[in-house]
């Protein structure tokens, strides 16, 4: 005992769902639409302004649509539980207590945190627990646990949505536009819906493949044990009976989902309350919204720049900036960077996992948004050997792109309000051009000036983030 089985580790990696790197988004080089020059005809300027916004918007999206879809597929693949990727008897992806569309955290970051034992793994929960169960009963119940919760096969939102051949990349032919009456926007909406329905189906299939392997291996081990063929042939990735007892005897109920988990749950930093990882990944900043003193204003009078999104509060004591810490239980140690689950024996001095291995750290640092994970995790304590022990994790740690999302929301509102202004101004121009006096001419000039300023402002804003890259 005491060796790090390199094989387990390698297989763990190999069996993590393979996802190729997402291609980088192309930069939009043609921005001439943004800075279109002033034309003599005011009405064409108005139209041009409206159109340029529209076109710009669409071009930007068209170029990255496929990439964004690939990104979503990649995220879905990361959320598949593989029974071979276990840390201390738990997994790297959630059991499925919350619906698939609510899993919007950065799955890669969370996986790395779990592997580094800085966040509790996703354990399979027990629906109930009764302390009077005998060891045999408890083992039987744990043996009956599925790898992932049952999927709702037919979601209402995808009712009647065709999904076609899931292995084919093309699916736009599924958009039913025989009558040719669908507008571009409707077709786009349909495209998105079909994509989502297809992804949902794929997600189920991916997980079911893993579920079946898990079941087969459980049966396989059961047969070997029955025949008394010795333990060497057993599948290494399934838990030993001692591990099942170690994990589920003396567990805890998560106060949010009311499900029963092994004892090593995450803990709120402020008030030391337990929270399971599956509930933790659901907690996030507030959706971008206007401050409450803006409530009385009309929707169009609100300044998009005022949109805010506050960090999550502690669900238990409402302290600001909800932060959790996790301390792995030495007694539960097995799996990744430790002994195989099947070899787990209670109280044996297991191999210490090597936290100095920073290989995974670097891979996470290179997440899409470029945010360095290490800078998001504050070190709270260090043992004499310099080994990092407790980390503080917030909902921003696992959603490094929250700022991007807020900015996106702001620019969306800005574009909308700019369009509204343009329409408004164009109406006034038309009204103005009916009267022929000097005053209306002045108004006309003012309005024109206003619009040009607006257009310049907007184009500057839209171009500035691109220049940074």
């Amino acid at each position: 005992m005491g060796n790090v089985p390199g094989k387990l580790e390698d297989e763990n990696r190999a069996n993590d769902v393979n996802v190729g790197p997402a291609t980088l988004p192309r930069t939009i080089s043609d921005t001439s639409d943004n800075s279109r020059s002033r034309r003599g005809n005011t009405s064409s300027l108005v139209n041009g302004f409206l159109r340029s916004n529209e076109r710009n918007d669409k071009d930007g999206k068209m170029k990255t649509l496929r990439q964004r879809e690939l990104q979503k597929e990649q995220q879905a693949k990361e959320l598949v539980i593989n029974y071979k990727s276990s840390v201390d008897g738990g997994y790297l992806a959630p059991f499925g207590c919350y619906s698939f569309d609510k899993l919007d955290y950065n799955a890669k970051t969370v996986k790395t945190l779990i592997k580094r034992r800085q966040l509790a793994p996703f354990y399979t929960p027990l629906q109930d627990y009764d302390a009077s169960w005998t060891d045999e009963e408890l083992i039987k119940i744990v043996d009956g646990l599925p790898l992932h919760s049952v999927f709702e096969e037919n979601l209402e939102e995808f009712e009647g949505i065709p999904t076609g051949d899931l292995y084919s990349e093309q699916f736009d032919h599924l958009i039913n536009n025989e009558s040719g009456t669908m507008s571009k926007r409707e077709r786009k909406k349909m495209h998105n819906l079909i994509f989502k329905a297809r992804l949902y189906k794929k997600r189920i299939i991916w997980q079911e493949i893993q579920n079946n392997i898990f079941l087969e291996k459980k049966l396989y081990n059961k047969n070997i044990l029955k025949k008394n063929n010795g333990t060497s042939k057993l599948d290494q990735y399934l838990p030993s009976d001692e591990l099942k007892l170690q994990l589920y005897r003396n567990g805890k109920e998560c106060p949010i989902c009311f499900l029963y988990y092994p004892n090593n749950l995450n803990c709120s930093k402020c008030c030391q309350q337990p929270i399971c990882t599956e509930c933790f990944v659901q907690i996030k900043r507030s959706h971008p919204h206007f401050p409450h003193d803006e409530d009385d204003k009309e929707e169009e009078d609100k300044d998009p720049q005022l949109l805010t999104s506050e960090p999550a509060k502690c669900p238990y004591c409402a302290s600001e900036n909800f932060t959790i810490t996790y301390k792995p239980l030495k007694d539960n140690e097995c799996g990744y960077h430790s002994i195989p689950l099947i070899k787990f024996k209670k109280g044996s001095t297991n191999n210490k996992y090597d936290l100095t291995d920073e290989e995974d750290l670097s891979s996470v640092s290179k997440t899409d948004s470029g945010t360095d994970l290490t800078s998001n995790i504050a070190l709270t304590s260090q043992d004499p050997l310099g080994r990092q022990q407790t980390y503080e994790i917030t909902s921003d740690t696992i959603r490094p792109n929250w700022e991007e999302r807020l900015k996106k929301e702001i620019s969306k509102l800005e574009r909308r309000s700019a369009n509204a202004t343009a329409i408004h101004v164009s109406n006034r121009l038309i009204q103005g051009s009916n009267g022929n006096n000097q005053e209306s001419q002045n108004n006309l000039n003012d309005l024109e000036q206003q619009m040009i300023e607006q257009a310049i402002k907007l184009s500057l804003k839209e171009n500035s983030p691109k220049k940074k890259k």
Partner: protein
Amino acid sequence: MASLPKRIIKETERLVSDPVPGITAEPHDDNLRYFSVTIEGPEGSPYEHGIFDLELFLPDDYPMESPKVRFLTKIYHPNIDRLGRICLDVLKTNWSPALQIRTVLLSIQALLASPNPNDPLANDVAEDWIKNETGAIATAKEWTQKYAQAKE
């Protein structure tokens, strides 16, 4: 319909096995996310001796999203409007997934005991409450008498 999360099942069971004094909440047979609720008016408040009917609905995202609660019985209260909508922080921005049906209903009961006319939902009632508190309390008592009596 989607299967019911364990949390909702356990909360419902615990509401039955360990009921809150002065409050009842029963799920409908055909929709276990929809509850019929009654709250007794708190002692010493203008709503004393009244029994108020409410409806409570647990949305799909519960407990990440707050329950939707509404008074069905007419009530004269600065933080409850004519449609029975309730202005209460824990139902909106201060909702937390660690709160439960039980705690929400207790908060509503507490709101009956201490109306807050400075953060009104029913503007006319709140104005009345600030200008003429005795009169407003009398109206609240009258409405309790008139609308919030136990059905025989």
